[in-house]
């Protein structure tokens, strides 16, 4: 019987000779990630265990990206707690201050996550790295503490669901639209406990940034991982960045899938997910008249240079609608620097946007773009739960960067074609 990519990666990281979906196995992890919100709980657990020196500091990556630049005294204390631990434990892959960026944009960029890796992260969007052909999954802080001490994690072997995107993309459609469409079809628990394996001609045609957006939101369908097999584009991205060897896996032809679903991209227009779940996705032509107060372009989903280029293409020579706040947050220092070099930041400023530092900030209602009661935001982020970006009586709509930028110009949720005649 053939095996899926997920099963091959798990097999390469466990002593268990044979396993089935549903079995619980112990795996060696290549990377264990945490941020300023989740690391403190893990560190406290390590300290309470009495361990002086963690055995696997080389696998640990800490990124201070959520409530940074420190939004208040409590956040500053949390960051200091992580910083002190990182220094004491000699954790080399510690990203702070001007070296920090939104973690799931930063790690691929730095070559710290590679095809064939088994990655756990105390952040639910750790599944982003599935786009590189890795098995990457979000866990809790206690799992992370255990990984720092033992180098291992426990994993319930998931069954795999396959999703195939056929055909060619319609204008202004990107990876974000495909994944919102998919979640709209299967629901926020449509892939619960499962691996999503995403493929097809339309996915092969996507650049890495779009694929990262897709894998990023696998968790929004409840999935444990969202894997896209590595191909030539992946290798071209990874090779110059990697500082250690990696393995490219492909699923066998006779691998077992719990289900196989085919989507035709000819029917997928730019998507918008309505409040208060990512599954409330609609085609832009069905969005109706939705006035918005704020646009956010950034995050681990859509804060990469490719996303900013799309936004700039639309915002160039135009003005943000009066009374609307358009926040643009390049996801990493490198993205910021490239956006400056390419003149994108100037386009954004001329249009009347606000440029923020690389931070998760507004995505989770942390800081730098909080909504008042009754306000509506359209964001390129990944969650639109009640109160996600501020007041519990505010609303978040989700889209890709093209719809977000067009909507910033019109002041209501709009198709890119409306402003790009």
């Amino acid at each position, binding site marked *: 019987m053939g095996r899926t990519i997920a099963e091959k990666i798990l097999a390469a990281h466990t002593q268990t000779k044979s396993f089935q979906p*549903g079995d*619980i196995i*112990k795996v060696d992890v290549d990377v264990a990630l945490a941020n300023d*919100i*989740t690391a*403190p*709980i893990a560190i*406290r*657990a390590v300290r*309470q*265990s009495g361990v002086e020196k963690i055995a696997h500091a080389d696998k640990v990556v800490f990124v201070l990206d*959520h*409530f940074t630049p420190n*939004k*208040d005294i*409590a*956040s500053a204390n*949390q960051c200091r707690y992580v910083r002190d631990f990182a220094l004491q434990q000699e954790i080399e892959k510690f990203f702070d201050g001007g070296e920090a960026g939104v973690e799931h944009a930063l790690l691929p960029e730095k070559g710290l996550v590679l095809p064939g890796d088994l990655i756990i*992260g*105390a*952040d*639910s969007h*750790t599944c982003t790295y599935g786009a590189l052909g890795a098995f990457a999954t*979000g*866990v*809790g*802080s*206690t*799992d992370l*503490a*255990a990984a720092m*001490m*033992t180098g*291992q*994690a*426990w994993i*319930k072997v998931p069954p795999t669901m396959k999703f195939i995107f056929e055909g060619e993309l319609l204008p202004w459609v990107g990876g974000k639209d495909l994944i919102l469409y998919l979640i709209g079809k299967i629901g*926020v*628990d449509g892939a*619960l*406990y499962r691996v999503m394996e995403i493929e097809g001609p339309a996915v092969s045609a996507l650049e890495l940034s779009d694929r990262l957006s897709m894998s990023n939101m696998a*968790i929004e369908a*409840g999935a*444990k991982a969202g894997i896209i097999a590595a191909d030539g584009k992946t290798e071209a991205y990874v090779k110059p960045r990697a500082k250690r060897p990696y393995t490219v896996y492909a699923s066998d032809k006779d691998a077992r899938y719990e289900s196989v679903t085919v989507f035709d991209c000819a029917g997928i227009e730019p998507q918008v997910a309505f409040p208060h*779940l990512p599954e409330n996705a609609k085609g832009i032509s069905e969005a109706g008249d939705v006035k918005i107060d704020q646009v956010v372009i950034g995050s681990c989903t859509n804060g990469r240079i490719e996303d900013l280029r799309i936004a700039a293409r639309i915002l160039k020579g135009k003005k943000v609608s009066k009374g609307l706040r358009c926040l643009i947050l390049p996801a990493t220092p490198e993205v910021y620097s490239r956006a400056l070099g390419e003149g994108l930041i100037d386009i954004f400023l001329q249009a009347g946007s606000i440029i923020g530092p690389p931070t998760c900030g507004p995505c*989770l*209602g*942390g800081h730098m773009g909080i909504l008042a009661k009754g306000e509506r935001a359209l964001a390129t982020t990944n*969650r639109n*739960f*009640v*109160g*996600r970006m501020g007041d*519990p009586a505010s609303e978040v709509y989700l889209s890709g960067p093209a719809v977000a930028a067009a909507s910033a110009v019109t002041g209501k949720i709009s198709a890119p074609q409306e402003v790009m005649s």
Partner: protein
Amino acid sequence: MILKGRAFRFGNDVDTDAIIPARYLSTSDPDVLKKHCMEDADPAFPDRVEPGDIIVAGKNFGCGSSREHAPIAIKASGVSCVIAASFARIFFRNSFNMGLPIFESDEASAAISEGDTVEVDADSGVIRDLTTGKVFQARPIPGFMQELIEDGGLMEHIRKRGGI
């Protein structure tokens, strides 16, 4: 172990922002977090909940973030266990890792009403609605997870057994 308390009912897809909004994540102190537990889903919950009470929800409870602050807040608020039709996967593993008992039962999730007195036998997974007299059986817990519960969570498990 017998867990007993009043049922607080919630719907499907209760997310971690509803369980503990991110605006409170500048701390992981259980005593602070419990004051805001379930606040955006039911503002009265932190004041009304009493030790032993039980959260009963629909499908996909705990979806969203990996924040362990969510089971920490629930546990600190005195809730003895959560019963749901299904749990989101990170919330599921976090609960076992840190010793918050959770039980999956479609039938109990559908039948238990707000305010019912509910009793759960944590060892057998038998759920009794003492108000209506109905009895339900939760789905069995895998062996390794039972080990985690017996050991008192993942860190104690590692301490006792020298590894995962």
